[in-house]
């Protein structure tokens, strides 16, 4: 897999010429969670019997009619306060959750950079974990084998890959996880605030790998509380508030509006 040449622009240009094909189409997305996340036990049942049988069907709406599209090669930022529905939206895009109402279409191989290291097992060696994690993220074993050297080189953990994962520091584990995720040839990249992986030099490296991917035409949805990162990495941004789109547009503009509103609050 040839790494694209380093693009030294802070905000990657949209790929010229290619007609903007829609990669993500979200139409009026609603998502509710049962309000009582802890199932009521027998005790609660006896104590609150009347309340229990009345409006228990009411849920908590994490998303209320969110619509947007993302074109190929575009990078979309999502901002908003805690509990605004950002992570819920990402899990819908990833496909680990289904919308309660609405239509969502995502084309292409999705790679989550949300919580890294799915399937990691502490008693397995680094290499074994690379295989498990890679296959979990949608590669075949043959594909992992073909990229193994690249992944190990990127993680800078060559001396440790034959040791069980439990001997790694947490920073080293994250480096391994990031290395696998970035090598899954993503077409749609879903990022949730993980730019701070490993030490300073690895952070620079992972940040650059991310910028390269975005610059190389990968469609990205990026959730962050770092307004700098949003302005730098995203073409457009959406501001979510209480499950609704409060503003949408060019990243810098939305960030400015958002910051202004926060200042008043």
């Amino acid at each position: 897999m040839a790494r694209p040449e380093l693009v030294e622009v802070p905000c990657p240009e949209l790929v010229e010429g290619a007609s903007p094909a829609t990669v993500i189409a979200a139409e009026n997305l609603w998502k509710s969670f049962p309000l009582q996340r802890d199932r009521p036990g027998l005790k609660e049942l006896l104590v609150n019997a009347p309340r229990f049988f009345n409006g228990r069907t009411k849920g908590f709406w994490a998303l209320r009619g969110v619509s947007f599209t993302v074109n190929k090669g575009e990078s979309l930022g999502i901002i908003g306060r805690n509990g605004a529905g950002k992570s819920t939206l990402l899990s819908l895009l990833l496909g680990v959750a289904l919308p309660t109402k609405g239509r969502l279409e995502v084309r292409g191989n999705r790679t989550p950079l949300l919580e890294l290291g799915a399937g990691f097992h502490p008693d397995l060696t680094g290499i074994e974990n690379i295989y498990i994690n890679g296959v979990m993220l949608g590669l075949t074993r043959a594909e992992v084998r073909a990229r193994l050297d690249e992944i190990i080189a990127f993680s800078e953990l060559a001396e440790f890959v034959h040791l069980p994962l439990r001997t790694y520091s947490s920073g080293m584990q994250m480096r391994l996880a990031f290395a696998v995720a970035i090598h899954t040839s993503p077409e749609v990249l879903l990022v949730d605030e993980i730019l701070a992986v490993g030490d300073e030099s690895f952070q620079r490296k992972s940040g650059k790998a991310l910028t390269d991917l975005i610059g190389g035409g990968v469609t990205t949805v990026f959730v962050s509380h770092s307004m700098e990162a949003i302005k730098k990495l995203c073409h457009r941004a959406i501001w979510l508030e209480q499950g609704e789109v409060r503003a949408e547009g060019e990243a810098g503009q939305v960030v400015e509006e958002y910051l202004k509103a926060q200042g008043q609050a």
Partner: protein
Amino acid sequence: MQISKTTRQQLDLLWLLVTKEVTFRYKRTFLGFLWTLLNPLLTALVFFVAFTIFMRFEIEDFAFFLLAALFPWSWFAGSVTVATGTLTGNVSLIRKVVFPKHLLILSVVIAQMVNFAFTLPVLLGLAFFYDLPPSLNWLIGIPILATVQFAIIYGLGLMVSVANVYFRDLEYMVTVVISLLFWMTPIIYPLSAVPEGARPFLTLNPVSYPIQAWRDLFMHNTLNWPYIGIGLVTAVVVLLLGHWLFRRMSGRLDEVL
């Protein structure tokens, strides 16, 4: 034969899940993989001592009689017990990555089947030891019975795993129900010991007939087609029901896990 990339990828995933389940369980133990064989053997020893020395059961070739049913039973009991906690125990995986969730259950059943396969040489040895040498029927009967039992276990596994997400008490109930089923299954006694009037209740237990069929195969080299037939019908019903329930209920896992 050309298989699509998705199929290839899912097979790879299944392979990794099974290897994880089979080998990594005992990774940090001294005896390691040997435990797969030691576990059922030691359990068998306990029963053997209890029933031949303390309770003095008068059954011919009791060790063979017992193990011919106990090993297939362990495959069933082990799978169902593990499967119950499989979805609730893999929350992080289910919330992090997209993959067909039934592969988790499938891997549990396959892993337990591998354990069962490792006990077959023991049964083979016992067959010669008790001078009841196997015939070619073993080669026909084992795959057929294994398929039937696989389907029953997998179907039940789908049901209990997804039901346990919504009703966590199930995890604790399953242990009790399994031990109840153990005594309701002709394992330490022959099916013929059950009074005629109580036989219909045995059909409530999905594995009593397959287990008896296993024993007939191992001890008498007979293919008990009526019992295999009952097992097959059970398998189809349980599998369809389990599949339907799992599909229906696993879509909203993210909201309740």
